[in-house]
């Protein structure tokens, strides 16, 4: 892969939900790290934008956050899914799968222009 993609609108929330569902409680930097690694560094999120998304999701009730101390001894804000967040993830997953399937069907359709 030669290029790096920015996420499509609405993708970032899905990625965060998925990350926290898979990896459990994480602070912001670790979430970013995890997304990067999990997508083989294809999807790169701007650092600041991640935090907008996290805080919006807290407001929406999908995430909970509280303070802790990391193993490096730093004070950090940890996020985890709420019940509402888990059901949001299910819906988003369905939506994404349908979307990806639809796009894939179109992309693999034989015949040129």
């Amino acid at each position, binding site marked *: 892969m030669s290029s790096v993609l920015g996420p499509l609108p609405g993708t970032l929330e899905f990625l965060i939900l998925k990350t926290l569902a898979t*990896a459990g*409680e*994480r*602070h*912001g*930097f*670790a979430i970013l*790290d*995890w997304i990067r*690694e999990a997508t083989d560094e294809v999807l790169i999120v*701007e*650092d*600041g*934008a991640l*935090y*907008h998304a996290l*805080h*919006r999701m*807290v*407001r929406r009730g999908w995430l909970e956050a*509280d*303070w*802790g*101390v*990391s*193993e*490096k*001894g*730093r*004070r*950090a*804000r*940890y996020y985890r899914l709420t019940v509402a967040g888990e059901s949001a993830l299910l819906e988003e997953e369905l939506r994404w799968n349908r979307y990806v399937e639809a796009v894939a069907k179109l992309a693999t359709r034989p015949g040129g222009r």
Partner: protein
Amino acid sequence: MRNTGPSRRFFRLGQRQPPLDEAVDWEIEHHLAEQVDRLVEAGWDPGEARAEAERLFGHLGRHRDRILRIDRSEAAMRRRTQGLEGALAVVRTSLRAIRRQPRFALGVVVTLALGIGVNSVMFGVVDRLLLRPPEHVVDHGDLRRLFVRRSFLGTVHTQSIVTYPDLQDLRTAPEFKSVGGYTPARERTLGGGPNATRVRVALASHDFFPTLGVSAHRGRFFAPEEDRIGVQGAVVLGFDFWQSAFGGDPGILGNEIDLSGFRLPVIGIAPPKFTGAELSAVDAWMPLEAGRYLEAGSDRFMHTYGSWWLRAVARLAPGSTEEAATARATALHLHGRADRIERGMYDPEARMIAGPLILARGPEASSESDVARWLAGVSFVVLLIACANVANLFLARGARRRREVAVRLSLGVSGRRLVGESVFEAALLALAGGMAAVVLALWVGPLIHATLIPDLYWSPGLDGRLLTFTALISVGAGLLAGFGPAIQATRINLVDDLRDGGRGSTGRKSRTRGALSALQASLSVVLLVGAGLFVRSVSEAHDVNLGIDPDRVALVTLELDSPDADAETRLRVYEEAAARAGAMPAVSHVALTDVPFQWALGQALGAEGWDSIPALPGGGPYYYHVTPEYAATLGLSVIRGRDFEHSDQEGAPVAIVNATMERVLWPVDGALGKCLYLGESNQCTTIVGVMEDASRGGIEEELHMAYLLPLSRTDPPEIMGLYVRTRGDAAEALSPMAQTLRSFSPDIRWADVSTIRELIEPQVRSWQLGATLFTAFGGLALIVAGIGLYSLLAFNVAERTREIGIRSALGARRGRIVREVIAEGARFAVIGITVGFGVALMAAPAITDLLFQVEPMDPPVLLAVTVALLLASLLASITPALRATRVDPAAVMRTDA
């Protein structure tokens, strides 16, 4: 799962959240620090790594602001929903708690309803007597009632009665904007013949109504030219009387009515509930000057400073003060009496005082209002007892619910929320109690008014002030009773309470509850002592020796058809009435007099062996012109000498003196045969008999001298009364007698027949009021306290079920366990008696004046209260004690822990 290492949380920070902006800074700072680490690992120069990290983050300032905005809107949202949801949850939980324990809720509501109800009732009375001005009075802050303080026969006293010239003088004072005079209502006869009825008529000057600021409901009040001697006069009807007697017909305006023989045109209707400057109902108003002239038959009252008969109210002029008004009124008062003062006939130190309009606040306060003040305080004590009881109930329930509370606390429900729920529940129950109290007040209030303070005009129905007061004390009582227990309920040791099923050590709570019970017992004792003292006062007052037998003697007073009948006519009509009454089988004796009960007349008098007759504290000597059977009719025995005979009425002048007069004037050789010199004459009036002392009209009287003279038929005095002695209780014979006397002669417009008991009744009323309500409140307090004690003992027995069970298993005798419980109850009674007597002892000096011939520490009362309290504690402890004996040891052993 990978890379869990450094991103895992090492440990949690405390619950406290940092301020929002600080939190955002912390988070960004953490991110940058991690990024710098990453960059340095990748080979960046540490100095440049920081700048690169910030570049990667994006526009730092803008991101920070946007994040902060999100957080702020979230915080605001959360506050809104949490507040509302929290409140709703509190309401829901409280309602559920009430539904779940209806008996508990009922107990609380009834207890509070009683406590609040008595306060509402007493507030109604005190508000009317002391707090509010009479109805329809405008700007009562500027209104003053005028009092005269003067020394008379060596004692200084203050009176609200003034003379007509005083009123005229006050009208000239620039310190007053206006001045008005009036008399309290007196009964008069409306109409004549068999349809005659009695109405309460007050006199009022033309400027009385504008002074109060009241205007007529229909028509108008008096014009100055109607308030003059020699004009026909006029009458204004009271609203209620207009409604009841004339069906509220406005056509009555302009028509004439017949009041005691005077035909007066109706010119106006007073507004509803208007009672003038006092609080008694008035059926009709007549002009002061014209009315007095008709009453007195002469205009002497206009000019003499010696004829005291009216009351004066005045409105201060703008800018004037009470002191200036008092100074001016005093100057005028003394100026008018300059010659009397010079002749030594009037107190030169006398003052005329601009005092409070509301009579109960002034120096002439009735003893009813004093008693009412006490009762209001007492009703508050009843409320305190009720609150203590409710607090006790809440505490007991809190103790039963420890496990539930512990579970909820451990599930993360905040203590504040639990307190909120309990307090809200208490407030809700208190409001329900308040509503029940209003119903109670509406029901009991009129009863108390009608029986105990009948002179007070009372309009039934709801009143905003009463409702506000009731609502306020309801909430106050709810908070008082609910707050402490609510807080205590959340002070729980989670581990212990969860482990032993809420049956843990409850020593501290029981101590609080014990203290509350002791407090209740003490307050009950104070109230019961008060009740006992008033009851004893009533019975002393009832049994006081008047000389006259109050239940077998009745006084008949006649209103003659012609208001200005001469003395001969009066004698003739009274003699006819006496003959009629005497012919009734129930009547044994009749007698006529010119000075009936509660009147007193004196005249210049000389006595053999004395230059001047010494003055006694009770005044006198007083004289009575009487017919021969007078002493026998009143039930007074002639101690020495003889009673009058018919021949005395026209023969040589003779007299009978009372025992005090003989003892004072001729202590050694007795009064028989001695001479009295009546008026200025030197003719000897020979004393032929000595009679036992009799009351002049009151139950609290100082000794006085009195003498009887035979009533002359050829030169009769104005006969004012006919005494009737009945064979049995007078009350039954009176109604037919009144009927007969009212109808037999066209000369009689009205006959009033009252037993002596009825005439002295108003003097007993304040003790009656105190006795009835103190007893009611004290009894209520004792019942409430008894129930409280019962619940405490029952609770303690329940708490000790295990211990009792084990002890029975080990062979403890049942009697011993019963004794223990009863002794525990008796302990509260003893504490209550001790503390209560102490408080009563301290309060004693304040209450002495309100009692009648009873010491505040009256032994029979103290004994009765002690017995009552011990009995109550025994009653309260019997059931718990029996329950303790029924504890089954085997069952106890089988239960958990």
